[in-house]
């Protein structure tokens, strides 16, 4: 009983990403124990679940940073199971990292430009030896086409950074190590956008942000979605998940325990138990149902 709710009718016949039966074990622990996940073009799917539920491990498997012990991943019509991350990125699947892995010594602009790497004409020839040498020659000679491409990209970087208002633009030439945590997360998202991904994986984009910053990020993601960007989102702030998602997948203990429309998932008893916490959640009425845990005496309040 993995999916207590019917999948929304919107699920396209050919999903952009389809992962089946993913399993990943670490020593005695099974971090991901048979997860299916699919996302159609234009969808925003959120993956929620407590820390340690296997969300980031699943992201690592999909983005090629880690190989599944079992299962398959299909992206944009091609099997990418076990493919290295650079190949996955070139195919158009790009991610951010939970703790904000920016290139510390690169400027904000250069960080974002690295995101556009897969779009550069110079990197296209993939033949061994000849490809890299041609790339080197283009980099050193810099014909007008290369210069024009670079200038256009730099202009685009400013446009992307403008999404974040005045947060990053004034710091465009500062090295990333000097940025605040929230700004690093923004740089990461800008870098991912510069790749023009077909599928964008966001791993807790609002971690370490306060309420104002979170609200700002929510608007940004909503705008991306409105533009048609397909997004797979890991997020803890349920409020945000409820507002943004077309579909929500709930993981717990390495398994998918529910999947469906945000409202349906939110009211699923299994989800409330696993994710929102066993027993009392807020209302006294529910707490009353859960006799053993509700009447814990407070020894100090005597």
């Amino acid at each position: 009983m993995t999916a207590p709710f019917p999948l929304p009718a919107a699920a396209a016949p050919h999903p952009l990403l389809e992962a089946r039966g993913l399993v990943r074990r670490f020593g005695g622990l099974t971090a991901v124990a048979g997860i299916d996940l699919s996302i159609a073009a234009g969808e925003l799917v959120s993956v929620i679940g407590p820390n340690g539920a296997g969300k980031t491990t699943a992201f690592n498997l999909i983005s090629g940073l880690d190989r599944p012990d079992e299962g398959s991943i299909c992206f944009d019509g091609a099997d990418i199971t076990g493919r290295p991350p650079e190949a996955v990125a070139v195919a158009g699947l790009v991610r951010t990292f939970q703790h904000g892995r920016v290139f510390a010594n690169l400027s904000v602009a250069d960080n974002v430009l690295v995101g556009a790497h897969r779009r550069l004409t110079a990197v296209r020839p993939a033949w061994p030896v000849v490809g890299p040498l041609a790339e080197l020659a283009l980099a050193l000679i810099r014909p007008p086409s290369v210069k024009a491409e670079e200038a256009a990209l730099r202009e685009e970087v400013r446009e992307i950074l403008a999404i974040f208002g005045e947060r990053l633009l004034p710091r465009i030439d500062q090295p990333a190590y000097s940025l605040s945590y929230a700004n690093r997360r923004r740089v990461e998202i800008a870098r991912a956008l510069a790749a023009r991904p077909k599928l964008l994986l966001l791993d807790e984009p609002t971690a370490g942000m306060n309420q104002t910053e979170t609200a700002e990020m929510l608007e940004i993601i909503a705008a991306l979605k409105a533009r048609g960007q397909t997004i797979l989102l890991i997020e803890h702030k349920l409020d945000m998940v409820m507002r943004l998602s077309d579909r929500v997948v709930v993981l717990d203990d390495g398994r998918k325990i529910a999947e469906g429309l945000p409202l349906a998932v939110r009211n699923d008893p299994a989800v409330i138990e696993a994710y929102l916490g066993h027993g009392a959640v807020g209302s006294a009425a529910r707490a009353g149902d859960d006799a053993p845990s509700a009447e814990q005496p407070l020894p100090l309040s005597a």
Partner: protein
Amino acid sequence: MSETQPILALKDIDTFYGPVQAHFGLSLHVGQGEIVSLLGGNASGKSTTMKIILGLVKPAAGDVLVGGISTLKLKTPEIVRLGVGTVPEARRLFGAMSVRENLLMGAFVRNDKAGITADLDRVLGLFPRVAQRLDQQAGTLSGGEQQMVAMARALMGRPRVIIMDEPTMGLSPLWVDRVLELIRQINGQGVAIFMVEQNASLALQIAHRGYVLQTGRIVLEGRAADLLTDARIRDAYLGGAEAA
């Protein structure tokens, strides 16, 4: 209960990692025998709070008191000796060592051999499952069993307060219940608990008081029962689930 000195107190802590500030005037305390929860999302500054208490990171400003003694100038072993036990995030057992060796590492700062032996028996009485696996390598245990060993290990130091970093992380609901029950039992023996959690309702269920940490600041504090029904908590963590 008499107004005794708190076992653990953080006063106006500022912490920096390079140019990035992690704490902004953070203050909190844990009374003797209390269970206190610190709630906050990823990257809110929770883990840094743990490091500050253990002296692994030193604050730029403010003071940390364990049993009324400032620990700013103390090294971690000395702080542990004051009675601070730890259950780290993701348990962090010594995987290639036996369960017994892990438990004895918990008593590392103690030198009373007889007392350690007695405590080992006492702790194993509390954790019968652990007793069955004393000679097994800790890394081969399941997640829930590892969590039990981590708690047993913390108890071996005869702590006055145990700081726990997400003790239910990555556990199945069944194990979550067990772990919470054990935390209550440990607390019942007079050990104060300072618990960092992401799961608000779960943490507040067993806590006496709670603090909410957001981007390095305490934004809310109070009795657990009050926090549980506080609309702001619901909004921040539960997405207004109960409103539906």
